[in-house]
């Protein structure tokens, strides 16, 4: 890995199923994440993805790319345009900084998830990829 490297984009179709499954898997029962009628009463046009699911997807995007040995150190995200059903979010990432150490490289990756409305999520992830070694192959 090197600074400036771009990660291949990951397209995530925002289905109603993903929104509800993500909310329930994260134990978030706020009605705006599963009940469209109540979401509308609160001024939202539909249900929308909860932040825990976005966080999970950002984590997945990074570990998908850097592999199963990659260790997430920090995930910091900010939400913007909501993820509504029927949309598609495209996650893109750029390595901003790499710190090389004997036991592995630690990268800071800038991540953006864009949907049809705008930028759903912006954030940075710090991830360490251990050096290849006896224990590094798993």
């Amino acid at each position, binding site marked *: 890995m090197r600074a400036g490297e771009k990660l291949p984009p990951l397209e*995530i179709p925002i289905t109603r199923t*993903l929104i509800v*499954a*993500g909310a*329930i*898997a*994260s*134990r*978030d*029962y*706020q009605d705006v994440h599963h009940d469209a009628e109540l979401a509308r009463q*609160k*001024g939202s046009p539909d249900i929308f993805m*909860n*932040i*825990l*699911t976005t*966080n*999970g*997807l*950002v*984590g*997945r995007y990074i*570990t*998908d790319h850097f592999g*199963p*040995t990659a*260790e*997430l*150190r*920090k*995930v*910091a*995200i*900010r*939400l913007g345009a909501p993820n509504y059903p029927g949309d598609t979010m495209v996650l893109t990432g750029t390595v901003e900084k790499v710190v090389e150490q004997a036991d592995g490289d630690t990268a800071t990756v800038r991540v953006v998830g864009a949907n049809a409305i705008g930028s759903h999520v912006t954030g940075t992830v710090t991830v360490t990829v251990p050096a290849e070694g006896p224990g590094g192959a798993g």
Partner: protein
Amino acid sequence: MSDAGDGKGATLSEDELGARLKAYEGRRATVSGRGRDPVNTPMIRHWCEAMGDTNPAYAGPDAIAPPTMLQAWTMGGLSGHEGRTGDYDELLTLLDEAGCTSVVATDCEQEYVRPLRPGDEITFDTVIESVSERKTTKLGTGYFVTTRTDVRAGRALVGTHRFRILKYAPVRRRKPEQAARRPRPVVNRDNAGFWEGVERHRLLIQRCTDCATLRFPWLPGCNKCGSPDWDTVEASGEGTVYSYVVMHHPPFPAFSPPYAVALIELAEGVRMISDVVGVPCDKVRIGMPVRLEFQVYDDELVLPVFRAREEETV
């Protein structure tokens, strides 16, 4: 558009509210909270299924939990939060009372000290780090509340989780069903008979009982002989487009431009303004044969419209 917040501001001025909210900074939101379940493989699997995450590190005998699940282990779920202090609920209630009844999460910052593994028992403490000034956002006006949660497994710190929510008074939106309602006809004693006919899906034309002249729209007297006496004849429903315009601008609620507004000449000889349906607006032509039908727009509104005759539409 912070009317919902201002509406209830009578009880507490904005400054007073701000000061009361600030007082919660540094207070504890949760003391010795306990995860509802120990870290476990079923919840990890459900999470991975939802996220589409196939990372082998999260499966098998040496599985770790996805680090981004950190907050999930602290969630109260449907049974509520254990260990939550009165302070945090008070803060939220204060905001509710100020009209900031909606909530949305805006930021999540997590640091992972060590991975969680099945069997780890979670405890956590949360402190209210900050409450913002009153902010106006696209969603509405409200306050950002930031909390920091230290998550432990046994005595060891495994991660920290900083979370920011916006508690806000939602911008009032026009209800879509209201926006989509067509304008209502103005019914008065001169035209009531016409609208009663439309309700029964009959298009009635006024006829002077003295000189037999047909007239439309409905009027109190005959334009030809001045007689106030009239009866009605029912239109056969056949007609042609006498003239039309295509409406592009301005857009009105319940209408989606461009659309044709046509002057229809009925077979009986009178003309009326109506819609031509069943044909794109750029295919409407003068002389086009049309046939009457009644379109039901909602529970209260039926209107006569004219459908382009099929054999004529190419």
